[in-house]
């Protein structure tokens, strides 16, 4: 088994930066009581202007005029770590949040699919860079070793043979010993006894070491060398997705929502990829400065998970939306996930590809124009033209029946047209029907020639004057 450990040295800061429209502007996280706030972490732009962790907020603001800050939030760090664990779940079924600030996950089982390791490593790093998280990555034969090696290495890959020497050269203060017993400073004691490197401990008689430092150290050393099995709690992602994006100042136009929407959909895509699922519908909620939240349900024709597709469809959907007021918070949630069957494009033959393109077109049209705009042609067994065509009354016509000629176009409502008919070419055809539902009609239909030569479908009521235009023979 081989375990990868990802360490996120700036998780809190980068998680907060993801929610900012311009991550390159000076920004810092602050902590401490309100009267003595100090800088916890600062981004590159702020550091370049001299802002450092530990500085008092007032001092930092004096150094950097346009510094923007947000409070450091332990809860949100954990939230981001869980989200990253969900992302890592896409690569491994065994993802653990056992070690703080880090993720460990088993990769050997996935290497057949995603490997070899250099390729998987490049992919992990590429995806993390796209998400905006700096990281250190090490792969080792067991999770404990991977965790301590990531303290000093980045990109190291050790196997069973190389493990002993890699561990031996670790300095004791970087070897995770401090976590063992906080009351009794084990590293200091060892240093005073003349030990500097982990390798020197491996050479000592075990019984003596155990007697002097207790079983905790022995166990830690055994875990590092893979002699003691380490049982970890594995991360199980939740089957629901919900994210919010809060704005510093109210957003008045749909255009201002484009960036946060992209971020949230990207996170949705990562989440779905990790779940090996897709969404058929998801919801967008705008919480307004005043008034009730505006909620939209975005329904898709087929199950999707590609963030770009989702973004395109959401954009098309939002083009029809009018904001009811300034938006303070954007929330994206997918209450239900659906099984996703990826389409294997390169294997598709002509007709299947056609069907896929047709489904995509259908989806695009419906997203922007609304479901009612795209209409099928359905023939109904009903004599009254309005009922049959406009209202869809009556049963669907099944077998092809030969009826009297009908015009290709039907006007929405009959119109009076007394002067325009030049000549009657065919007819009459009496349509008399509908006495049972109170909407009965009694009309004589004719094919008429119009003054400019067009062919129209007109009717008059038997025994009465007045022509009505009801359609065109196109």
């Amino acid at each position: 088994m081989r375990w990868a450990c990802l360490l996120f040295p700036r998780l809190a800061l980068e998680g907060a930066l993801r929610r900012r429209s311009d991550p390159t502007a000076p920004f810092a996280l602050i902590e401490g009581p309100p009267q003595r706030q100090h800088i916890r972490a600062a981004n590159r732009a702020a550091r370049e202007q001299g802002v450092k962790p530990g500085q008092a907020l007032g001092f930092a603001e004096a150094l950097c005029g346009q510094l923007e800050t947000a409070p450091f939030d332990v809860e949100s760090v954990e939230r981001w770590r869980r989200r990253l664990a969900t992302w890592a779940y896409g690569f491994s079924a065994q993802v653990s949040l056992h070690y703080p600030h880090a993720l460990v996950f088993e990769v050997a089982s996935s290497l057949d699919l995603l490997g070899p390791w250099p390729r998987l490593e490049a992919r992990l790093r590429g995806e993390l860079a796209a998400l905006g998280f700096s990281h250190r990555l090490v792969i080792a034969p067991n999770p404990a070793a991977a965790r301590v090696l990531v303290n000093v290495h980045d990109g190291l890959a050790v196997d069973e043979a190389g493990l002993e020497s890699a561990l031996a050269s670790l300095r004791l203060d970087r070897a995770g010993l401090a976590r063992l017993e906080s009351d009794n400073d084990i590293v200091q004691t060892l240093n005073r006894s003349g030990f500097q490197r982990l390798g020197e401990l491996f050479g000592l008689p075990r019984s003596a070491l155990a007697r002097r430092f207790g079983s905790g150290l022995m166990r830690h050393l055994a875990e590092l060398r893979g002699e003691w099995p380490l049982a970890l709690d594995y991360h199980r992602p939740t089957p629901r997705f919900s994210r919010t994006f809060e704005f510093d100042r109210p957003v008045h136009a749909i255009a201002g929502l484009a960036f946060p929407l992209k971020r949230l959909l990207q996170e949705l895509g990562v989440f779905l990829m990790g779940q090996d699922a897709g969404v058929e519908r998801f919801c967008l909620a705008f919480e307004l400065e005043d008034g009730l939240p505006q909620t939209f349900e975005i329904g898709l024709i087929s199950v999707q998970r590609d963030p770009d597709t989702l973004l395109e469809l959401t954009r098309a959907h939002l083009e029809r939306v009018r904001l009811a007021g300034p938006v303070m918070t954007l929330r994206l949630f997918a209450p239900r996930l659906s099984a996703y069957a990826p389409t294997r494009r390169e294997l598709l033959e002509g007709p299947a590809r056609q069907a896929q393109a047709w489904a995509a077109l259908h989806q695009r049209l419906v997203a922007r124009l609304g479901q009612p705009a795209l209409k099928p042609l359905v023939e109904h067994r009903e004599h009254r033209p309005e009922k049959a065509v406009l209202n869809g009354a009556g049963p669907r016509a099944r077998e092809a029946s030969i009826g009297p000629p009908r015009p290709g176009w039907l006007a929405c409502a009959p119109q009076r047209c007394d002067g325009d008919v030049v000549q009657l070419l065919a007819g009459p055809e009496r349509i008399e029907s509908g006495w049972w539902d109170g909407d009965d009609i009694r009309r004589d239909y004719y094919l008429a020639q119009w003054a400019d030569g067009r062919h129209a479908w007109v009717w008059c009521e038997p025994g009465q004057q007045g022509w009505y235009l009801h359609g065109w023979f196109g």
Partner: protein
Amino acid sequence: MSGLKSLLDSRQVWRAQIAADNNHGEAIASGHAELDALLPGGGWPPAAISELLSTGAGNGELALLWPLLSRMTREGKPVMLVSPPAVPYPAAWRQAGVALEQCHWLDVQGREALWATEQCLRAGCCAAVVAWLPQADSRLMRRLQVAAASGNTLAFIHRPLAKAAEASPAPLRLRLHRHAELEILKCRGSFPPSRRIAFGAGA
């Protein structure tokens, strides 16, 4: 006359007619024998827009297109109508031989109609797109022409007669006269015949 012949023999003259005949090898038959005989390549220009100018609905535009649409839909290829002038009467379309389940129409107006037409053309999955776009000017027609070429889709754009005077990038422009009579205003690769052509009108 002998001068012209020697000029042709020396291969110094490029003849548009021959180039057009070669290009339009895969023209799509309209289903009207007399019209096919006159159109360069023997049918509708593929992957391009054909412009139909008329005074409005009822000039035989459906009689002109139905043979093509019925052939396509019965082969299982979808056909899209964008912002038709009135509601299509399914019984009539079925009588004309159109397979209704492959036939869809979009009830949209204005800018959305242009957008939808372009989307349908670009998607490349519709066998034919028939659109009624009185608002389209020559710039938009060019855009649609590019879309039709990129999506390899057959397109028919209906515009009012007033647009006949405007330049148009469509390789084929037809004017519908009275019922079931048409005049070819422009056809790329050939000289438009001056006489009107009557096509078999069903109704």
